[in-house]
């Protein structure tokens, strides 16, 4: 198994002319867990919704998403429907609203089983019950008759996971799967995802705004900012020694359970997609910005094996996490994208 399972190349997404994703590349291998972190507006969710063609029609998507040798962005709609939920499944943030309130769990789970496994009647019930058992829902047979509002948020997310597993997918994309849940329930769901992955050798993309969640559950982590990947590295390396000033800033801004220290806030706000700054999108908030940073959007370059950084000064910076450095003022012409 040499080639990656899924490969995204040069993905761009724009809504009404405003770029949301500005050239993203990812490769995920079988059984691998890739974490994607970023703040709101970073394009972390949009990238994967675009890859599965789940965005509304007004979204303009360019690039290539290869699953084995098929380009998902070009296959016929029927083929795409077969692959969605079949080979690539996706679960979402708020399980209570991600399930249909007027349909039973049996109906919603059965739909996926009928579509991807060709089951019907009794065999749907049996398999649905097996899946609910697998995801740890007590009284699985009884729960089939329930509606989402009769179950807790954690249980609904388990149902979502069961639904995603119905088609035996090779890849599960989990978009903020625990954000809406309580801390102890969040731990249960993350644990369940790990268990499922061990048992099925399924690859996982875990999208989260929480660096802690991603660090503990993924092999590799990509950090996104303003529609681009700015750093990608093995999880341990990224948190021990971030190379991109934004990645470093995120870690510095995160409070820990250890002794409190002065948090280093990243000044300013995420840029407006319609008015992207010249050069590196992070430069207006960056403590290390230099004139070189205005000379074009920095490429995501491989600096060492398994590690990619998109920073014009990647080679020369020696970042010290938790360093307090004010942003540098540099002459900046106003640019409107």
């Amino acid at each position, binding site marked *: 198994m040499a080639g990656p399972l899924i490969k995204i190349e040069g993905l761009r997404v724009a809504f009404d002319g405003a770029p949301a994703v500005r050239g993203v590349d990812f490769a995920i291998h079988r059984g691998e867990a890739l974490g994607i972190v970023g703040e709101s507006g970073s394009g972390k969710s949009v990238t994967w*919704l675009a890859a*599965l063609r*789940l965005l509304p029609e007004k979204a303009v998507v360019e690039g290539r998403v290869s699953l084995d040798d098929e380009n998902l962005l070009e296959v016929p*709609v*029927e083929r795409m*429907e*077969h*692959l*969605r*939920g*079949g080979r690539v*499944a*996706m679960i*979402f*943030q*708020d399980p209570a*609203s*991600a*399930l*249909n*309130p*007027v*349909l*039973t769990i049996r109906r919603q789970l059965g*739909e*996926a089983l009928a*579509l*991807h496994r060709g089951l019907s009647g009794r065999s749907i019930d049996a398999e649905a019950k097996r899946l609910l058992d697998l995801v740890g829902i007590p009284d699985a047979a009884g729960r089939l008759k329930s*509606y989402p*509002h*009769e179950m807790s948020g954690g249980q609904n997310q388990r149902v*979502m996971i069961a*639904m995603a597993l*119905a*088609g035996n997918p090779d890849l599960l994309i989990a978009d903020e799967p625990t954000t809406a849940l309580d801390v102890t329930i969040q731990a249960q769901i993350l644990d369940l995802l790990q268990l499922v992955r061990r048992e099925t050798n399924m690859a996982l993309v875990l999208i989260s705004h929480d660096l802690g969640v991603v660090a503990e559950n993924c092999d590799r982590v990509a950090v996104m900012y303003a529609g681009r990947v700015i750093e990608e590295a093995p999880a341990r390396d990224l948190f021990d020694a971030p190379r991109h000033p934004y990645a470093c800033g995120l870690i510095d801004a995160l409070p820990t359970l250890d002794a409190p220290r002065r948090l280093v806030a990243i000044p300013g706000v995420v840029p407006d997609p319609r008015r992207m700054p010249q050069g590196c999108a992070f430069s207006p908030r960056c403590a290390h910005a230099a004139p070189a940073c205005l000379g074009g959007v920095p490429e995501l370059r491989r600096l060492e094996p398994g590690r990619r950084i998109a920073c014009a000064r990647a080679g020369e910076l020696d970042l010290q996490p938790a360093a307090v450095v004010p942003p540098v003022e540099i002459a900046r012409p106003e640019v409107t994208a």
Partner: protein
Amino acid sequence: MIRYLATRLLRAALTIALVVTFAFIVLRLSGDPATIILGPEAPPEAIEAFRHNWGLDRPVLVQYFDYFRAILRGDLGISMRDGRSAIELVGERIPATLALTIPALLLQLAIGIPAGVYAALHQGKGFDRAVMVTAVFGFAIPSFVLALALVLVFSVNLGWLPSGGRDSWMHAILPIITLGLGGAAALARFTRSAMLEVLGRPFIRTASAKGLPWAAVVRGHALPNAAIPTVTLVGFLVGSLIAGAVVVESVFSWPGVGRLLVVAVSNRDLAVVQCLLLLVAASMVTSNLIVDFLYGVLDPRLRHGARAGA
């Protein structure tokens, strides 16, 4: 579910009782029927006899309870004008009105719902805009204006359809269109916005992510949810059809209950007016009951009592 329905039934009965009381009070307040029916120059003895005959000389509370008891027995009094039973008078007009309102309701459902769903699925496209513009006009034009315009075009200019009366099914066409069009427009607009709201909800994306074809997502996931608010509007439309019948029947000289109401009011025929009011209230309450029942069927959250009464 049973408790939910029992609650609604109790409320319906209460509503009817309130309407009956209201009708009693308003009709007593609107002047002495004796002087209106017999005229201001009638001799006092005649008026006294009339009042005694109709029980109008007894204490108001006694009258009220008698009236209430009579209604419970199914006795709605007799017409002060021609002495026939009010129920009989109203009853013989009901088929004519049903012959307009039922086809009008079907017309509203058959046009409004598909047009609204289709417009929502093709939001911003030509058809959607056409539906929206038509709907605004259809909703804004008063029914008597629409009726006159239709008569002018199809009866006077083209001579295709009769302009009034109830001699053949041809006579029903223009009244039905007049009666149904406004509601169809309202229903189209409402269905469209209900669909758009549902299509934006996260579970639609979940259904697509499962690999369901779009048509199945719309049919299996969007429509059942959009039906919940739409049912409310249909209930409201039934009520407005009854009100619309008064105008339409007058314009097209259609011998239904609507026209009877106009005549009875101008004649101060109390028993008939009361009977008609009761009929209107009962049909509105019934349509609301049906709506509530459909709610329970469509929305499991109500069925389990989690939000009942809220």
